C-alpha cells in the first residue's frame, strides 16, 4: 500500500456530503454552486446540498488537503470573477477511491446476507 493510500484510509468512513463533493469535482474544477447542481443532477434531485453544509465541508476539506483552490482560473469565457473554484487533490482522489472500495465491500456483504438485489 502506498503512503498516500495509507493516509487516505485514515479519513474513512467519509461523511456523505464530503464524498458527493469529491465526486462532483472528479472530472473538473467547479465553484460552489456548480457543485450543488452537479450533486443534485447525479442523484436525480434527491440530494440538495445546502450552502451551509457545502461550505462547512469545503472548509474542512481544504484544511484536510482533499481539495485546493487552484491558482490558475478556467478559460476566460467560462470564468466568473466573483466565484471561487475548487480542485480535487491526489489525496482527495485516493480518499474517494478508498471510500468507494469500502462501500463496495459493504454492499457485497449486504448482498450475501440477502439485503440487496444483485448477485450474491
Amino acid at each position, binding site marked *: 500500500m502506498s503512503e498516500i493510500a495509507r493516509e487516505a484510509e485514515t479519513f474513512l468512513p467519509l461523511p456523505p456530503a464530503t464524498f458527493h463533493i469529491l465526486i462532483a469535482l472528479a472530472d473538473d474544477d467547479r465553484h460552489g454552486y456548480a457543485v*450543488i447542481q452537479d450533486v443534485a443532477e447525479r442523484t436525480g434531485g434527491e440530494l440538495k446540498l445546502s*450552502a451551509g453544509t457545502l461550505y462547512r465541508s469545503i472548509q474542512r476539506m481544504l484544511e484536510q488537503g482533499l481539495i485546493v483552490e487552484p491558482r490558475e482560473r478556467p478559460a476566460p469565457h467560462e470564468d466568473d470573477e*466573483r466565484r471561487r473554484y475548487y480542485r480535487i487533490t491526489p489525496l482527495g482522489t485516493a480518499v474517494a477511491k478508498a471510500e468507494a472500495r469500502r462501500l463496495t465491500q459493504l454492499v457485497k456483504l449486504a448482498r450475501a446476507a440477502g439485503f440487496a438485489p444483485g448477485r450474491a
Partner: protein
Amino acid sequence: MRGYRLLLRLYPASFRHEYGDEMSAIFARRLRDASNLFTRAALWIETIAEVTPNAALVHWDVLAQDLHYVARTLRRTPGFAVTAVLIVALGIGATTAAFSVTDFVLIRPLPFPEPDRLVKLWESMPGYPRVELSAPNYRDWKAAAKSFASLGVYRAAAVTMTGAGEPRRFVGSSVSAEVLPTLGVSPIIGRAFTADDDRDGAGGTVMLSYQWWQTEFGGDPNAVGQSVIFDNTPYTVIGVMPREFHFPSSDVLFWTTNRFGERDYQPSERTNNYLYAVGRLRPGVTLQQARAEMDVIAAQSMRQYPKENKDTGAVLLLLGEDVSQRSRLLLLALSGAAACVLLIACANLANLLLARALGRRRELAVRAAIGAGRERLIRQLMTESLLLAIVGGALGIAVAVVSVPLLARLVPATLPIAAAPSVDVRVLIVAAALTVVTGIAFGLAPVARAGGSPDLEGLREGSRSGGGQKERLRSALVMAEIVMSVVLLVSAGLLIRALLTVQAIDPGFEPEGVLTMRTELPMPAYGRVATREAFYARVLGEIRAMPGVTSAGYVSFLPMGSMRGGIWPVSVKGDVEAANDTRRANNVAAIRYVTPGYFEAMAIPLRRGRDMSASDSRERPFVAVVSESFVRRYWPGADPIGRHFTFAFADREVVGVVADVRFRGLERENEPQVYLSSMQVADGAITFYSPKELAVRTTTQPATLATLVPGIRAIIRQADPKLPITRVQTLSDMVDLETASRSVQVRVLSAFALTAFVLAAIGIHGLLSFAVSQRTQEIGVRMALGAQSSDILSMVLRRSAALALAGVIPGVALAYAAGRSMEALLAGVKPADTVTLAAAVGLSMLMTVLGSLAPTLRALRVDPISALRTE
C-alpha cells in the same frame, strides 16, 4: 437579502469573510428561482433550519481546531503551560477554599425555615453584655412578650449512659418543648417533644441526633421506643432528628426536656443564669419592635425585683448573627487574603501572556498577513487563556477540596451547623465563575494587544519591543503584585506577632508533662463529702505512687477546659446579704474546690502562706487560697493571710495566695480566683462544683504521656467501675487548643503571603528579563561605546528599585489600613508594628532582588559584538 446576511452573522466571522459572498450568491439565485410567495417562504424556512445547526457546527470546528493548535503550542512551551496552570490553580484553590468556609459560616442562611425571624434572647448586666437567662426571668418575660410566635429555652446537658460495657459520657442539650417547633424542624422518625414531656415529673424522653442514631443505634428505625439509661434513670427514645439538624452546636448528640417545676422558679433562682433562649418573631414584627418591647419588659422586671434584677437588661440578637466578632473578622481576613492571591495570580498570568504575545508578534503578524482574520487570532488567544484557566481551575478545585477540611478549625463550634464545611455545588459554581472570569480577565490583556492595528512591524527583521504603552501596562501589573504581596506579608506578619504574643501569655501554670481527665461523680451517689473524700484519697494516693508521677490533684474545673465560668459574689465585710447580690461585675470571683496537691500538679506558684491540706476538714475553720488579683482588689498592699471574707454561703479565712490563672482562656479577661477545700462544704450542697477533673504531673516525656493512661484508668475503675472517664488529654493540648484557630489562621495567611511572595518575584523576574532581552542591542551598543558593567548594572537595578518602591509605598499604606481593620484579631499588637513592617519591607526588597538577579546577570553578560551583529 439583508435577512440572509443577518443570518450569516451566526457563523464565526472568519468563516463569514471567507464564504459569506458565495453563500449569499447561492441564496440569491435560489430566491430568484423561487417563483411565488409560497416557495419563497418555504425557502426561508429551509434556510433558517439549515443555517442554525451548520453555524453551530462551524463554531465547533473552529473550537476543535483552536484547541488542537493551542495544545500543540503549549506542548512546545511546557514551562509556560505548567507555570500558568499552577498559578491559576493556586489562585482559584485559595479563593475557593476561603469562600467555602466563609460562605458556610457567614453567608449562607441557617438551615432552618425563615431563619431571619429566629432570635436569641439574653440578659445583660454592666460588664457582661450577654448573660444567660434565669428561669424566673424567662417565665416572666415570656408571659409578657407579644413579639414572639414562640420562645423556648435550652441548656447544655451531659449524661452518663450505662448499659452494656463501660459507662460513657455524652453531650447533648436539655430543651423546653417549644425549642424544636420554634426552629421549625421536625423529626424524621418518631415524634417531637410535647408539653407533657416537658412537665415537672414527666418520664424521661430523649430525641436522637441523626449522627448519634447512626453511630450508637446503628441507624435502626426501631431505636424509637427503646429505653436508655442516662444517669441511672430510664429515658425513652421518641424520635430522630434530620441529618442537617445541629442545635445549638455541632457536637450535640441528643435532646431531653427541661421538665421545670416550681422549685426552678423560686425567687433565689432569679440570679441563677443558665438558660439560653431562642425565639421566633411573630410575622410582621421587626427586630427593632421586638427589642423595644423587651426593653420595656426588662425595665418592668427591674422595678419589680430591684435587688435581683439590678441593672439587668434584655438583649435580642438574630440567631444568624450569633457569630463572634472575632470569627467574623478572621474569616473576612481570610477572604481578603485569598482575593489578594487571586488578583496577584491574574496579574501574573496577564503578564505571562503579554510577554508571550510579544514573543509571538512575528508569528501573529505572519498569520495575519497570510489572511487569518483578527477575530480568528483573538479567538485563538482567548481559547488559550480559557483552556489554561479551566485546567488550572479544575486543579484549583482539587486544591480546595483537599484544603477545606484543614480550615475546619476556623468554623466556630458554637453554631447550629455541621462542624466542617464541604465543597458543594454552591462553592463549585463560584469556583467555575471565578475560573471563567480569571480566564477572560487575564486573556484580555494580550488580546487587547492583538486587537490593535494590523501591524506589519512585527514582520520587520529585528523588530523590538512593543512600545512604551505595553511596557507601562506590564510595569503596572507587577507593581500591583508587589502592593498585594506587601499587604499579605504585613497581615501575616501581624498575625504571627499576635500568635506569639498570645502564646507568650503566662497561663499561670506549667502545662508540660501534665495529664488530665474527667471523672464525673454521679449524684446523689457522691452527694456526701465523706464518700467523695474516700474516692479522692484512694485514687490520688494510688496515682501518686505510680512511677513517673510527681503529684496529682482534683479540681472542680480545669482552666481552659469545658467549663470556664463559675463566678460567685464576694463580700469582705462579713455581709452575707451582699454576698447574695451577684449583680456587680466588680465583686465576683471564680469558685473552685480543690484537693490538696492540685496546685503542685498544675505548678501554680504559691506566693504566700500554705496550700490546702488534708487537715482542712469540715470541722475546722473554713479556709481559702486566693489569687494575687484577689488580694490586689480587696487588700492592696496589705498582708492577706488570716483575713476573712464571705463567699459561697460561709466565712472563709485566707491561708494562702497563689498566682493568677487564665481559667477563662489565654485571651479573655479573668476574674480573681478563690480555691476552697473539697472537704469544707455541706453534704449535697454545691455539688456542681465538686472536684471531678484530675491533673497528674509526671516526669514522663510528653510523647509517652499517653502510656500512663491505662494505669490511671485501672486505678479509677477499681475505685468505682461505674465512673465514666472522659476528656483524657494533656494539659499542653488544652492550652494549645486555645490558640488553635489562631495558628490555623496564621498558617493559612502565611501560606497565602508566601504564595504572593513567590508569584510577585516571578512577575518581577518576567518583566525585567523581558526588558533586558528587549534592550540587548542597546546594552551592546552602550558597552561598545565604553559603558562599564557598573553602568549597565545600575541601569537594570534602578529599574527594579523603582518598581519595588512604587509597589512598597502604597503597599505599606494599604497594609496599615488592613491591619487597622483587623485590630481585634491582633491581641494588642499595633497595626503599625515596626518589626513587622520592617520585615515585610525587607522581604519585598529581597523579593525584588531575587526577581531581578537573573535578568541583571544576563544584562552583564551581553557580548557587544554579537549583540551588534544581530542588528
